[in-house]
C-alpha cells in the first residue's frame, strides 16, 4: 500500500537508511521500549481518507451548523474581516515558521510583532506591550498573577462583577491554584461600584483590581477616581478592554491604569467557535520586568542596520524555570499579525467610523425593541456602544429567535437578554430581527 502523501520515503530509502543505522528493520528502532508497551494491534482509527474525501467530510459537518445572523457579543464579536488579512497571514513564510529564535531568518515575524506591540501601546496609551497572550480571559489571569508579583505581600485581587463571566471564571481558576484570594466588586446600576471598591481596599490586602472598560452589559464605564483609590492603597488598576472600542472610549492611560488587558478578537478575527483569538497586555514602564510573555526589541546588527530580536528574556519561563511567575511560551503570534494588519487597514479614521456604525445600529435596535413593549430598559441613562442588555417578558426568546435564523437575546447570569450589533448587520437584518421578536 502507498504511504501517507506527507511521507516521502521509498522502499529503497528505507533499506539504505536502516543499513547505515545498522539495524534490520523499523521495529528494531524500538528495541529500547519494553515489549509490553508496544502496540500489538493496529490503531482502531477510521480508514485513511483521500484529500477529496476530507474536503467532503468537513463541508458536510460545516453544513450541519446553523447559519444564524449573529446579534450577540459577550466577548466574541462578529466584525468583518477584510480579505487582505487571510491572504497575507496565510503566506507560508509567516504561517509555517516557528517562534523567531533565529533572528537572522525571522525578521518578518519579529518586525510585525514590534508593529503589533507599538499599535497595542498606541491604543491603550501605555508604554510597553508583550508579543501576545492566548486570549482575553488568560490575559486577565496573567494580570492577576502579575499584580501579586508587583505588589509584594498583598494577597488579594479584586474582580468587577461587570467583567464577562468567562473572564471571571478563568481568573478564579488560576487564582485558586496560584494561591491568590479573589474578591468581587459589585456592579451597581450596571457599572462597577467605586464605593464598593474603596470599601474592599480597607483590608490593606489588595494588590489590584481588574475592571472592564466596556462591561458585559455593554455599558462604557466611568472610572473617575478608580486609579486614585487603588494607588492610595498601594494597589494597581487593570483595565479589561475591547481594543476596537479603544478608538473612541477613554484609554487605560487616560484612566491612569497600570495595566491593560483584553482580547484582540474584535480586530477582525473570525468567531471560529471560540478560537484562535489573541490576548493582549500593555503596562506602564515601571512594570516592564514583571510582564509575562515574549517581547521584541529593536537593536542593530554588525553592519549597523536596524534589526529586531526577542529581548528581556531573563523574565521568561525557560530561564526562570521553577522561579517563574508565568509559564507562557507559545502565544498567538499569527493572530497578532492578523490584528496588526487589521489595524493598518482600518487606520484611525476607519476604526472611529466602525464604532459609529455599530453604535448607531445598536441604539436603533434597542429603540425598536423597546417600542415592542416586550422589554424593559434597566439602565436607561447609561452610555453604550455596540452591545446592550434588556429585561424581557418573553419566555425562551433566544430559542424562538434561533428558529427564525437569529443568534440573539442571549441570557445573562441575571436573566437579562443581551444583544449586539456590528457593521456586518444591515438595517434590513435588524428590522427582520425586530419583526421576529414581535412574532416570538
Amino acid at each position: 500500500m502507498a504511504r501517507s502523501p506527507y511521507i516521502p520515503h521509498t522502499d529503497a530509502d528505507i533499506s539504505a537508511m536502516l543499513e547505515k543505522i545498522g539495524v534490520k528493520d523499523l521495529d528494531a528502532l524500538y528495541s529500547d521500549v519494553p515489549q509490553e508497551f508496544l502496540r500489538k494491534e493496529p490503531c482502531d482509527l477510521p480508514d485513511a481518507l483521500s484529500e477529496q474525501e476530507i474536503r467532503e467530510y468537513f463541508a458536510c459537518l460545516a453544513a450541519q451548523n446553523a447559519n444564524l445572523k449573529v446579534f450577540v457579543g459577550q466577548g466574541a464579536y462578529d466584525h468583518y474581516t477584510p480579505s487582505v488579512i487571510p491572504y497575507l497571514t496565510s503566506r507560508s513564510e509567516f504561517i509555517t515558521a516557528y517562534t523567531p529564535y533565529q533572528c537572522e531568518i525571522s525578521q518578518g515575524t519579529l518586525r510585525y510583532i514590534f508593529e503589533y506591540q507599538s499599535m497595542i501601546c498606541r491604543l491603550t496609551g501605555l508604554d510597553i506591550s508583550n508579543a501576545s497572550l492566548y486570549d482575553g480571559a488568560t490575559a486577565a489571569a496573567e494580570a492577576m498573577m502579575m499584580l501579586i508579583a508587583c505588589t509584594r505581600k498583598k494577597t488579594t485581587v479584586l474582580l468587577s462583577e461587570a467583567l464577562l463571566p468567562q473572564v471571571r471564571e478563568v481568573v478564579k481558576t488560576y487564582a485558586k491554584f496560584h494561591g491568590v484570594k479573589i474578591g468581587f466588586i459589585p456592579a451597581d446600576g450596571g457599572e462597577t461600584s467605586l464605593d464598593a471598591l474603596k470599601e474592599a481596599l480597607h483590608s490593606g490586602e489588595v494588590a489590584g483590581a481588574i475592571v472592564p472598560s466596556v462591561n458585559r452589559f455593554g455599558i462604557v464605564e466611568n472610572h473617575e477616581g478608580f486609579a486614585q483609590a487603588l494607588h492610595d492603597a498601594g494597589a494597581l488598576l487593570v483595565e479589561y478592554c475591547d481594543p476596537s472600542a479603544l478608538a473612541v472610549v477613554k484609554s487605560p492611560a487616560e484612566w491612569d491604569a497600570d495595566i491593560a488587558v483584553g482580547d484582540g478578537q474584535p480586530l477582525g478575527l473570525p468567531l471560529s467557535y471560540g478560537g484562535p483569538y489573541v490576548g493582549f497586555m500593555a503596562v506602564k514602564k515601571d512594570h516592564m520586568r514583571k510582564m509575562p510573555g515574549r517581547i521584541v526589541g529593536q537593536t542593530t546588527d554588525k553592519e549597523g542596520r536596524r534589526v529586531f530580536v526577542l529581548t528581556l528574556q531573563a523574565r521568561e519561563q525557560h530561564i526562570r524555570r521553577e522561579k517563574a511567575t508565568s509559564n507562557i511560551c507559545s502565544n498567538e503570534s499569527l493572530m497578532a499579525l492578523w490584528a496588526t494588519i487589521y489595524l493598518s487597514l482600518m487606520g484611525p479614521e476607519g476604526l472611529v467610523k466602525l464604532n459609529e456604525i455599530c453604535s448607531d445600529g445598536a441604539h436603533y435596535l434597542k429603540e425598536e425593541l423597546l417600542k415592542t413593549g416586550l422589554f424593559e430598559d434597566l439602565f436607561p441613562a447609561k452610555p453604550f456602544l455596540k452591545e446592550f442588555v434588556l429585561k424581557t417578558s418573553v419566555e425562551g426568546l433566544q430559542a424562538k429567535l434561533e428558529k427564525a435564523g437569529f443568534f440573539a437575546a442571549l441570557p445573562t447570569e441575571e436573566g437579562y437578554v443581551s444583544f449586539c450589533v456590528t457593521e456586518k448587520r444591515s438595517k434590513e437584518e435588524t428590522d427582520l430581527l425586530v419583526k421576529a421578536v414581535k412574532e416570538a
Partner: protein
Amino acid sequence: MKYYDKLVFELSQPGRTAFSLPENRFPSAGKLPSALCRGEAPSLPQVSEPDVVRHYTNLSQMNFGVDSGFYPLGSCTMKYNPKINEEVASLPGFAGLHPLMGEKSATGAVKVYEELEKELAEITGMDRFTFAPCAGAHGELTGLMIMRQYHLSRGDSGRTKVIVPDSAHGTNPASAAVCGLEVVQVKSLENGRIDVEALKPLLDSSVAGIMMTNPNTLGLFETQIKTIAELVHGVGGLLYYDGANMNPLMGVVRPGDMGFDIMHLNLHKTFSTPHGGGGPGSGPVGVKAYLAPCLKEIKVSGFQGNFAVMLRALAYLLSLGKQHIREVGQYSTLNANYIKECLKDVYLLPIEGVCKHEFVFDGLINDGAKEGVPGASTLDVAKRLLDYGFHAPTIYFPLLFHQALMIEPTETESKETMDAFISVMRKIAAEAAEDPALLHDAPHNTPITRPDETTAARNPVLIHPQ
C-alpha cells in the same frame, strides 16, 4: 531573502486610507458623553491597501518557514503542514460560528470535538480530553491543576511537591510554579535516563506527582518507566506526560499504557498544525476516566479553546487513518537515527544507542580551537547553517550538556533533504577545524547579520515612537 527596512508606521501619510465600510443606514445615536471619550483617535498607520499588501509581503520574505526548507528544530516537531487543513479551518460554516451558540446550532462543531476526542483517546490510551488549553505550556498548567484538584477533592491537601527531571522542558518547572507546586528536581544518569535510585528518597505523601517526557528531551526512551510508575503510584502520586515528544510514539506506544494518568498533546507539533511564528497552538489535555470529574472544575480559556486548530488536527488524523498513523512514529524515528549515525564521527554524541524522534550532540568533536583563537561553538554552527539555507537545530537545550545541539528531522523529510543537511553539517565541521573565525562571523548570506542583543536588553526599544 532580501533586507527590507520599513515599518508600517513609516509608510503613513495623513489622509490616506485603506478601510472599506458599508454605508451607515442607521439614524445617528449621537456621541458618548465627553467624560468617557478618548482625547484623540489612536495614531494608527494611514496607508492604502496596496501599501499594506506590499509591506507584509516584503516582511514575509525575510522569514523562513517549513515550506521554505528543512527546519530540524529539536523538540518543536516542524513537520509539513498539509494545505487541505488550511482550507478546512477557514470554511465559513465554522469560521462564522459564535462560541456561545448552543450545541443544537453547532452540531457540526460538536461532532468535530467528539471525533477528535475519540481518535486522540485511541492514540494515547487516555479516556477523556479537554480542548481548552491554547498551547503546550497551557496544557501542562491545566494538567497540573487537574492533578492538584484530584488530590484536593479527596481531602489530600498536603501534596505540594512535583518531581521534574533535570532534562525537562523549561515550561515544566514554570507550569508547576504557576500552579502553586514546589518543584523537586530529580537527576539523570549518565545514560540520560532518570536515576531511579535518586527518585526513591524523594517519594512520600507530599508528592502530587511527577512530570515526564518520554522519550525524554535527549530523544531517549525512559526504559525504567514501569518501575517509575509503580513507585510514584505507590506513594499516591500521579504521572504527568508532556506530549511535546509524542511524535515517535504515534501508532506504536501509548502513554496511557505506560502508567501515565494525565497528559497534554501539542496539536501544533505532533498533529501537523502550523506554528504560525509562535502560535496559535493547541494543547488538549487527556486524562484517565477516574480524573474526568476534575475536568469540569477547571476553566482555563475564554471559550472552547482554539477550535480552528482542532479542525486542522482532525483533518490530519483523517488523512492518516489506521493505515498511516504508525508511519509517523516509525519514520520520524528512522530519520533521526539516520542523521545521528551519519554525523557522529564529527559531532560529539554523548550517549550511544537508538534514539527516538530526536537526539542531542554536545558540539563539535574538533572545534578548531588554537592558541589565541577560540573554537567554534554550537551557536556558531547554528548560525553557519543559516548560510547554507537550513534552519538551525535547537541549541543549548537540554541543559545537561554545555554545547547541546538538538536535532529533530520529523517524518516528512526525504532522504535527499537529510543527505544535503548531513553534507552541510560535515562541511561546517571541516570549516570549524580549519578556520573557526569564519563561523564566529556567520551568518554571512542572510538578510541581516548577528544582532547586538546586549544593547537590546540594556536599552530596550520596544515600540516605534509616535
